[in-house]
């Protein structure tokens, strides 16, 4: 790992020449049998993997319209071909979204379409061989499911859907990824991705109360498992002890304190992240989300608020209502969903993002700030991919872009934007999302961060930017790790609520 270096910035953002095979040797660690079996997958590659993989593919094609349409509709126009950060950073043609999809599409054509059965060469169809299977593993674990390609596709083909299906097929035949599957095991066994047990979590929260007291002189609470609290906060477990995540957690607590909101965390659901999405497994996605439903029912809360985490917010915003009934508008006969929806307070969106919560409070003038507390920072905002392209905020299109920026502008004086080609819906993934935030993929992560680092360098040079805010635990962890390799200070990355925390006025107003 010592020889990993940042790729050179492109002078002008030209489209790189192809380097076939550049990343074929970068393969994420494969899960062992213990990890696999703990979450119900075969421990080893099963003997009849070929037939089982094709059968699984057929099953998924019948369950997901997205996969079926996306397999058929691509015309190889190349609109997506230069849009993936991993392609830009690695130049490996198999990291072009269309080529990544074609790894599966070629097999789809061979087994599920007439021309592929009759004239495989003509339509680029191929048998599912062991080599193809390994190629799937390698390159479907070089996709962060960030959906940037889907913005530009004239048919909206979303490579993330294909990647998820491929990972689901691979898992079902005993060929899983160590990083994601180990984490899913931890969520079920201990309650969060980081494997932080309940007592340790409570210790941490007590420590935080002392720290904040010391810093501000005010008793800001970090309550956990409080029945009858109004708000249940579901946040990524990195917020409990990782830097800079913890500073945002302190920010949430201060917002709740300053607005007099009764709130609680849950030891059972001490994790917003949901790696079930990354591996495309509906049962895992649902089982992990069900912990939140259960916690909400047990604690009797009226609102569910989600902390700063990109894919978690996508799952919460887009999928929770489907998976667990957290939301509204269920059929009156839908007893499963109604049970929870009757409990929730529908004057508010369920679930709400912490940024929606804070922005509402700012608009209601229930928070006051000393903006000069952030004067040492010239701030820019990195739109996290899953928030930007897989969710929304505020109940209107684009709220996911405006609301975090509104908050930053309310708590700080200096805010600048990065190049519009790399923000809002066109934002680049940090390079570590989608189950790739593991050191065995560090080379890929560094290269995948190239397009974001290029434009950050630009605003750092031209406008003196020295702080990049974001609202995603994976972005924070990834940038903390790779920014020093690009020559930036690791403390340049932080959460929006870290800035809120710096500027918020507590106590008597």
């Amino acid at each position, binding site marked *: 790992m010592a020889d990993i270096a940042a790729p050179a910035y492109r002078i002008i953002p030209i489209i790189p020449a192809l380097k076939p095979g550049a990343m074929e040797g970068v393969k994420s660690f494969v899960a062992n049998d213990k990890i696999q079996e703990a979450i119900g997958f075969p421990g080893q590659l099963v003997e009849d993997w070929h037939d089982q993989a094709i059968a699984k593919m057929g099953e998924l094609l019948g369950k997901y319209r997205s996969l079926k349409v996306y397999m058929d509709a691509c015309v190889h126009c190349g609109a997506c071909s230069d849009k993936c950060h991993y392609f830009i950073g690695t130049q490996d043609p198999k990291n072009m979204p269309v080529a990544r999809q074609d790894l599966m599409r070629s097999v789809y054509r061979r087994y599920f379409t007439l021309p592929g059965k009759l004239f495989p060469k003509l339509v680029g169809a191929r048998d599912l061989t062991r080599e193809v299977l390994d190629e799937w593993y390698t390159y479907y674990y070089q996709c962060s499911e960030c959906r940037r390609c*889907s913005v530009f596709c004239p048919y909206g083909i*979303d490579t993330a859907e294909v990647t998820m299906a491929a990972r689901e097929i691979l898992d079902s035949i005993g060929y899983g990824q160590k990083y994601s599957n180990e984490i899913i095991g931890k969520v079920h066994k201990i309650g969060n991705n980081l494997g932080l047990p309940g007592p340790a979590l409570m210790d941490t929260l007590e420590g935080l109360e002392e720290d904040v007291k010391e810093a501000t002189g005010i008793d800001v609470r970090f309550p956990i498992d409080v029945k009858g609290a109004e708000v249940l906060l579901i946040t990524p477990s990195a917020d409990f002890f990782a830097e800079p995540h913890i500073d945002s957690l302190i920010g949430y607590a201060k917002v709740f304190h300053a607005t007099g909101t009764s709130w609680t965390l849950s030891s059972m659901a001490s994790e917003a992240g949901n790696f079930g999405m990354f591996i495309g497994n509906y049962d895992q996605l649902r089982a992990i989300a069900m912990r939140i439903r259960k916690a909400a029912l047990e604690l009797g809360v009226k609102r569910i608020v989600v902390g700063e985490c990109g894919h978690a917010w996508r799952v919460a915003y887009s999928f929770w209502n489907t998976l667990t009934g957290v939301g509204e508008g269920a059929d009156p006969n839908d007893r499963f969903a109604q049970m929870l929806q009757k409990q929730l307070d529908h004057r508010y969106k369920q679930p709400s993002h912490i940024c929606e919560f804070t922005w509402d409070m700012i608009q209601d003038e229930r928070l006051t700030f000393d903006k000069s507390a952030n004067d040492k920072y010239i701030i820019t905002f990195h739109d996290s991919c899953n928030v930007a392209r897989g969710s929304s905020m505020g109940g209107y299109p684009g709220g996911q872009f405006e609301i975090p920026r509104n908050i930053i502008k309310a708590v700080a004086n200096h805010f600048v934007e990065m190049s519009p080609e790399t923000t809002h819906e066109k934002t680049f993934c940090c390079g570590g999302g989608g189950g790739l935030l593991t050191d065995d993929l560090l080379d890929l992560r560094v290269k995948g961060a190239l397009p974001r680092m290029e434009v950050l360098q630009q605003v750092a040079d031209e406008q003196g930017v020295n702080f990049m805010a974001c609202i995603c635990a994976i972005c924070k962890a990834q940038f903390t790790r790779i920014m020093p390799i690009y020559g930036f200070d690791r403390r340049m990355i932080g959460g929006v609520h870290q800035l809120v925390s710096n500027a918020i006025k507590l106590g008597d107003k």
Partner: protein
Amino acid sequence: MSTLFAILFYLATLVFVVGLLYRIGVYTRIPAPLKIPTTPAPTTASGVVLRMMREVFLFESLFKANLWTWGLGLLFHASLALVLLRHLRYFTEPVWAWVAFIQPFGMYAGITMLLGAAGLWARRLFVERIRYISTPSDHLMLALFIAIALSGLTMKFVAHTDVVAVKGFFLGLMNFAPLHSDSQVLPSSVGLYAHLLMVAVLLLIFPISKLLHAPGVFFSPSRNQTDNPREKRHIAAWAKQLESES
């Protein structure tokens, strides 16, 4: 020869219609279990209709992606649409007024369609990334469209065909009374035979090729879903079953 073409066109039309309906049926039946619109996305049904119309008529996403592909693609598709509409005059009697009106435009559209397809092919041949992702069928598909356009333009500008006879032939087919009289027989012309043969091939491969992007775009969940997951519970039948089990 006219008999062969009569059989061919009945067959090709049947495959096209039945194949396409079958595909649409398949896309309709397969559920979309999760809300996955690419956001920012419309929050209302009418907003989705507008988004889809922008996608279908203006190629909005492609515009964001690459201006060359967008320009050439739009030129090709818009020209093709005009050419197809112009051809309605061979299938209607009397010819509708608006079809008569667009005749001259449709004629030039044949040329712009050719230019568009040639430009797209040039991209496929000379841009390294796009050459890399191209299969033989991708090249052949463009070759087919170019050959159809060329053979059609040849009949218009070089070696005229008896279009009245061609119209007679197709009206006969449409009335299910093919080759009833001498006026319903195809004129003997190699250019015409080639043109018609290739059009029949196009109809035949439509339901099993990448031409499925035409119906596919309407079924793409990332484009046709309303962004209202918090306001309305969205659940597929197979997913609902999991709830009764647990």
